[in-house]
């Protein structure tokens, strides 16, 4: 049979005996072996452990035990999350090898208990910040749609692996857009849920008050399946919130009728740096949802540029607090872009950090008021499709507008999903933002859009060409 493209399809195929988890896992491991040297998605592949987990999942099916849709489903984890079956490097040489050794992060333990199969650990921007450094002894992430282009970051490896069909789903992290950026550039779906919805325990921190571990998959439906397992209070993470977790697939009715979609033209659509094709694709997606019964209204997100700045100030300050001892003694051991960006935190004063947190309170309240009048916001995810790596720099990252960090600052759920292709065949992406703890509505809108379009099901040609050759 043809390999399932989505978790949803694979879960159905496993249950009717069209494929076993071992067959699925072995096929993906073969794909990884052929494509990973070209794409640079995985740091480490845990083939033996994966096949053992797959065999265990098949044994459960055979004995009539079904732990839910993720049983037997292969996935990948960003190499900043602790896993029992492999060391954690954070894509660098600075992290103590003892960190994370011999135990699973809470999300990994939950996915394992649900019967999911861990294929390996994926490439990232070192410590989830900066840019890929070719001088480091790790694979260089390549965009599967055009190899010289950026796969974005920091969860680049998971993004590449999902887009190229090397895995059915994966884990990223997101402090200012690190799950949604790769989803945008590589052409799949990535959900940053509400801050506190998923335990961060067992993940190397970047910005303590902003970080999240997030599902990345081809579709909104698949991300909902993953979040169903990942979400929930964890006493090991004091930031998690003890609220009931709904079944996120229950809201996936395929309908947007009766929902109100806010479109913030100012800042998110009027920047001269916003790519015209991206703008047109996102507004066309809004039209699709309007035609499907949603009400569309123009709204304003106040102080959006300042919210981007506040998010970065908090991220730099919190990241610097964590890394300062290592930066002081091992600055040159970090990748060159990592140390350069992390040390920006030294330039901030204590008042700057507190002021950013005061702004955060204000911004959160403003967003709460805005969401009294709408159900979701729609923006572009990035200012354009994947950029050439040769044209990237930390200074450009600092200067360009960002459409993602505002939602880490406010803690709101935000999902990136494909909405078209550029004239040079690169994925374009829109972002849906929802109310705090209302991931269900974000999934509902994203899933309804994906039932009407097939952008999320497109696979980069390299993924099939190499396999045929």
């Amino acid at each position: 049979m043809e390999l399932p493209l989505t978790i949803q399809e694979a879960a159905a195929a496993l249950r009717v005996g069209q494929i076993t988890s071992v067959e699925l896992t072995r096929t993906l491991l073969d794909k990884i072996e052929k494509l990973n040297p070209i794409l640079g998605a995985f740091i480490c592949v845990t083939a033996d452990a994966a096949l053992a987990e797959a065999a265990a999942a098949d044994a459960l099916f055979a004995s009539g035990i079904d732990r839910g849709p993720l049983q037997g489903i292969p996935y990948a984890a960003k190499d900043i999350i602790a896993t029992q079956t492999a060391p954690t490097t954070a894509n660098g040489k600075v992290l103590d090898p003892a960190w994370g050794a011999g135990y699973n992060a809470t999300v990994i333990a939950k996915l394992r208990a649900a019967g999911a199969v861990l294929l390996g650990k994926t490439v990232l921007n070192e410590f989830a910040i900066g840019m890929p450094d070719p001088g480091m002894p790790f694979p260089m992430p390549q965009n599967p749609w055009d190899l010289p282009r950026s796969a974005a970051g920091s969860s680049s490896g998971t993004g590449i692996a999902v887009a190229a069909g090397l895995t059915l789903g994966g884990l990223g992290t997101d402090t200012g857009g690190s799950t949604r950026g790769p989803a945008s550039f590589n052409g799949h779906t990535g959900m940053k849920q509400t801050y506190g919805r998923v335990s961060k325990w067992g993940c190397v921190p970047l910005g303590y008050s902003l970080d999240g571990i997030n599902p990345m998959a081809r579709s909104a439906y698949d991300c909902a399946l993953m979040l169903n397992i990942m979400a929930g209070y964890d006493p090991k993470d004091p930031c998690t919130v003890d609220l009931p977790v709904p079944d996120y697939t229950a809201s996936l009715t395929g309908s947007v009728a009766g929902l109100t979609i806010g479109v913030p033209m100012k800042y998110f659509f009027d920047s001269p740096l916003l790519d015209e094709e991206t703008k047109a694709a996102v507004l066309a997606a809004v039209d699709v949802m309007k035609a499907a019964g949603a009400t569309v209204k123009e709204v304003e997100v106040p102080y959006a540029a300042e919210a981007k700045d506040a998010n970065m100030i908090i991220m730099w300050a919190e990241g610097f607090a964590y890394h300062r001892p290592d930066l002081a003694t091992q600055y040159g051991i970090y990748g060159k872009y990592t140390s350069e960006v992390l040390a920006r935190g030294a330039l901030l004063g204590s008042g700057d950090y507190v002021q950013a947190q005061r702004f955060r309170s204000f911004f959160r309240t403003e967003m709460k008021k805005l969401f009294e009048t709408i159900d979701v916001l729609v923006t572009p995810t990035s200012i354009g499709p994947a950029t050439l790596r040769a044209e990237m720099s930390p200074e450009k990252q600092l200067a360009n507008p960002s459409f993602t960090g505002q939602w880490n600052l406010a803690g709101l759920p935000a999902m990136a999903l494909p909405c078209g292709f550029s004239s040079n065949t690169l994925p374009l992406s829109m972002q849906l933002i929802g109310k705090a703890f209302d991931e269900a509505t974000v999934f509902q809108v994203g899933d309804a859009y994906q039932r009407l379009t097939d952008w999320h099901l497109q696979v980069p040609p390299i993924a099939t060409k190499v396999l045929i050759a």
Partner: protein
Amino acid sequence: MNTPDIEMIVRGLLAAGGLSLTDEQVAKYVAIYPTFRASADRLFDIPEIRYEQPAPIFRA
């Protein structure tokens, strides 16, 4: 602030942060510092947050 002032400030901040960097490394921070400082300063100019409480709340 002129450039020598900025360089002096940046060198002082990096040193206070425990960082001992080369001239080439320091130059990158000197180059971004005015923009960087302006973005932090801008948050002090928002009238609506003059009496706002910060987001982190400590619960004993």
